[in-house]
């Protein structure tokens, strides 16, 4: 069980750092489809920011901010976005993940493709973030048993 | 040879399978209904098989093709004269054994009767399948089913000894069927067929060096069930089974399936011409001769009646195989005839042993003094059966032995003639003391009164004994064994 770490410096630095980490994570995500970066990297950073939060402020504080239920929903939602976009392409008569076929009001196929892959990245981002936190919480709270909640 | 397509052979196989299912569904609750299924199936099966005799005697064969098992091999039933002899024998005796079983099982109030009748019916299905198989793979399939369906019968008593006997039976038979499978596969790779052909199909199609190997493997494979001497040990152990099982399965269906398989291999896979040319038959003829004499000697020393019968069975089975191995016309005729005749004679003897056990719980030869006065019909039948096996005219055993001796002469092998004659002497030696003691040595304190086993047991055993007598006087009676056998021999030698 990780408890609150009574150290003002660490707490303050964490408080300062976490928003920037999260902002950077979103930056990495949004640039993922045409430069290095992407959903997974962004998601890991986002997850890491929460993990930092847990380490500095303890498990109870973290639990108050983000519930396991929400994490499950995020994870599933992320995966749904991912496979859903693919499936929409399938429904529109293209192949699976054929972004060019997505029904977006944009002028050219490459733009539609870019938006499509961004959507995918967002899905991956959500999923990875949730799962990272999930794994960490599960391991950190090993003494509480592992049943369906 | 003209071939007719018909579902009758399939029907003959399936009828007892269906009966087996019905028996299982009926269960212990309605015993009469359950036994009715057995009897009904037996009668239907016999009439189906019997109705096939007509076309066979006209020189045609009846065939059912079911489906292709593997490319080039079909699950196929074909009734030819030789198969019909075995089919008639087994299905005919099933009717009698069913009646006998009912009496035996009810008198002894045996447990697990449903399983017993179920396996019995299943075994008969398999036996019919063996009799009518058109190729070696089909034969193998039914052979395996027969093995497994008789296993529960051997282990029926569920005592440690019975279980051990069952295990021994499985070890012997499964190992042997492995040998069969091996040679069947090897032959199939080289020839592309496994269809039985009168006179054999291997000549010129298999590598010369492999022939002795295949012959040895196939003969030992089927020879386990036929209890050839070094691999006979399971048969006496299996005598722990209930007597009807010993009677039908270990004197008729199972061991005869082994003999039948040997004969199929000798006459329909290799063929007399090929075997004579290669001289392959001789070592095996010596081996079975040894079996004949050794089994006879061992039988002399057995005090347990069923064990004595078991060794006598081993002796007779090898006589049949020796007849076929002589490869002469009369030898083959004698072998096939003895296959049928021995069935009737031996089942009589087993029936008698069972009847004695049910009535008196006596299993030892030395306890049977004076039993002939208590159970005159049973022991009368026993005497007839014993005389038949010894080859005393006018019983059917005489006819087949006559042909066997002729066969040895035709093959110019005097040594085997001597074997046949010695074995007849041994038969006399181990059966006649029983008959003599039963009738002429009075037991000490036992009062003299007629006290027979239930009618359901006495009728079958009298029937088989009398039928042996009839066959001896008129070999073509009812089932026309003699004509059918001649038909088979003509096909084998004519085709070869």
């Amino acid at each position, binding site marked *: 069980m990780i408890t609150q770490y009574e150290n003002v410096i660490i707490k303050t630095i964490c408080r300062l750092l976490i928003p920037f980490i999260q902002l950077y994570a979103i930056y990495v995500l949004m640039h993922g489809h045409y430069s290095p970066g992407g959903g*997974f990297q962004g998601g890991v950073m986002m997850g890491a920011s929460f993990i930092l939060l847990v380490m500095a402020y303890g498990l109870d504080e973290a639990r108050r901010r983000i519930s396991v239920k929400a994490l499950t929903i995020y994870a599933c939602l992320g995966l749904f976005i991912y496979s859903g976009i693919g499936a929409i392409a399938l429904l529109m008569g293209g192949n699976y993940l054929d972004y060019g076929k997505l029904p977006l009001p944009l002028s050219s196929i490459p733009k539609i493709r870019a938006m499509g892959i961004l959507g995918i990245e967002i899905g991956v981002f959500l999923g990875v973030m949730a799962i990272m936190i999930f*794994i960490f919480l599960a*391991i950190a709270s*090993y003494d509480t048993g592992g049943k369906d909640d | 040879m003209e071939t007719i397509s018909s579902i009758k052979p399939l029907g003959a196989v399936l009828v007892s399978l269906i009966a087996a299912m019905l028996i299982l569904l009926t269960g212990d609750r309605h015993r009469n209904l359950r036994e009715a299924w057995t009897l009904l199936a037996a009668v239907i099966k016999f009439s189906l098989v019997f109705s096939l005799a007509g076309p066979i005697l006209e020189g045609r064969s009846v065939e059912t093709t079911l489906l292709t098992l593997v490319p080039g091999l079909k699950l196929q039933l074909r009734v030819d004269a030789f198969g019909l002899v075995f089919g008639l024998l087994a299905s005919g005796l099933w009717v009698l054994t069913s009646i006998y079983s009912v009496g035996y099982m009810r008198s002894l109030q045996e447990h697990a009767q449903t399983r017993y009748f179920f396996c019995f019916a299943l075994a008969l299905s398999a036996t019919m399948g063996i009799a009518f198989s058109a190729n070696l793979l089909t034969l193998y399939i039914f052979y395996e089913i027969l093995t497994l369906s008789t296993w529960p019968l051997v282990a029926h008593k569920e005592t440690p000894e019975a279980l051990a006997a069952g295990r021994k039976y499985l070890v012997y038979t499964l190992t042997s069927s492995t040998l069969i499978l091996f040679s069947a596969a090897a032959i199939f790779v080289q020839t592309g067929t496994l269809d039985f052909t009168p006179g054999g199909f291997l000549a010129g199609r298999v590598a010369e060096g492999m022939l002795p190997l295949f012959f040895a493997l196939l003969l030992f494979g089927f020879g386990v069930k036929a209890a050839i001497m070094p691999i006979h040990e399971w048969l006496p152990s299996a005598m722990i089974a209930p007597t009807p099982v010993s009677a039908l399965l270990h004197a008729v269906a199972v061991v005869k399936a082994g003999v039948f398989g040997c004969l199929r291999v000798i006459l329909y896979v290799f063929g007399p011409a090929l075997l004579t040319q290669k001289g392959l038959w001789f070592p095996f003829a010596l081996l079975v001769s040894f079996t004949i004499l050794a089994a006879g000697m061992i039988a002399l020393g057995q005090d347990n009646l069923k064990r004595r019968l078991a060794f006598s069975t081993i002796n007779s089975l090898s006589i049949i195989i020796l007849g076929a191995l002589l490869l002469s016309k009369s030898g083959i005729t004698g072998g096939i005839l003895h296959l049928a005749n021995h069935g009737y004679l031996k089942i009589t003897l087993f029936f008698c042993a069972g009847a004695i056990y049910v009535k008196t719980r006596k299993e030892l030869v030395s306890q049977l003094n004076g039993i002939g006065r208590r159970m005159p019909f049973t022991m009368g039948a026993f005497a007839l059966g014993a005389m038949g096996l010894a080859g005393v005219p006018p019983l059917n055993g005489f006819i087949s032995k006559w042909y066997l001796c002729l066969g040895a002469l035709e093959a110019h092998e005097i040594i085997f003639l001597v074997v046949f004659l010695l074995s007849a002497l041994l038969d006399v030696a181990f059966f006649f003391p029983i008959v003599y003691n039963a009738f002429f040595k009075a037991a000490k304190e036992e009062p003299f009164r007629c006290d027979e086993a239930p009618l359901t047991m006495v009728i079958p055993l009298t029937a088989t004994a009398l039928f042996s007598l009839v066959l001896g006087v008129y070999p073509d009676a009812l089932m026309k064994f003699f004509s059918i056998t001649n038909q088979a021999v003509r096909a084998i030698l004519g085709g070869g």
Partner: protein
Amino acid sequence: MIDSLMSKYNYWIYIVLMMIGFYAMIGKKNLVKKLIGMNIFQTAIILYYISIGVKKGGTVPVLMEGLPHAAAYVNPLPHVLMLTAIVVSVSTTGVALAVLLLIYRRYKTLEEDEILKSMR
């Protein structure tokens, strides 16, 4: 001889790393050490993949002005593949840690021989 060995140094590095990981997986009694060995093992392969994508003088595979030819960039495909492999490795580690927790909860130790002793 040395040259030919040194010119393929990336192979040597990955093989040495892999063997270290392999040794830890096979030789160590502590389950966490085994897990660490597994991670080293996987990382070795990831490094190997990344090294095969690199070429001398190649640059980041982002399309740039004045460099129209693919030959000027390093091969991005192995790197992309390794992204997936890293994901796999992370999830494997996650599952393995979860299993270790189960083991710890049940046996109160992570030494393999002690666990085997208590199972008997």
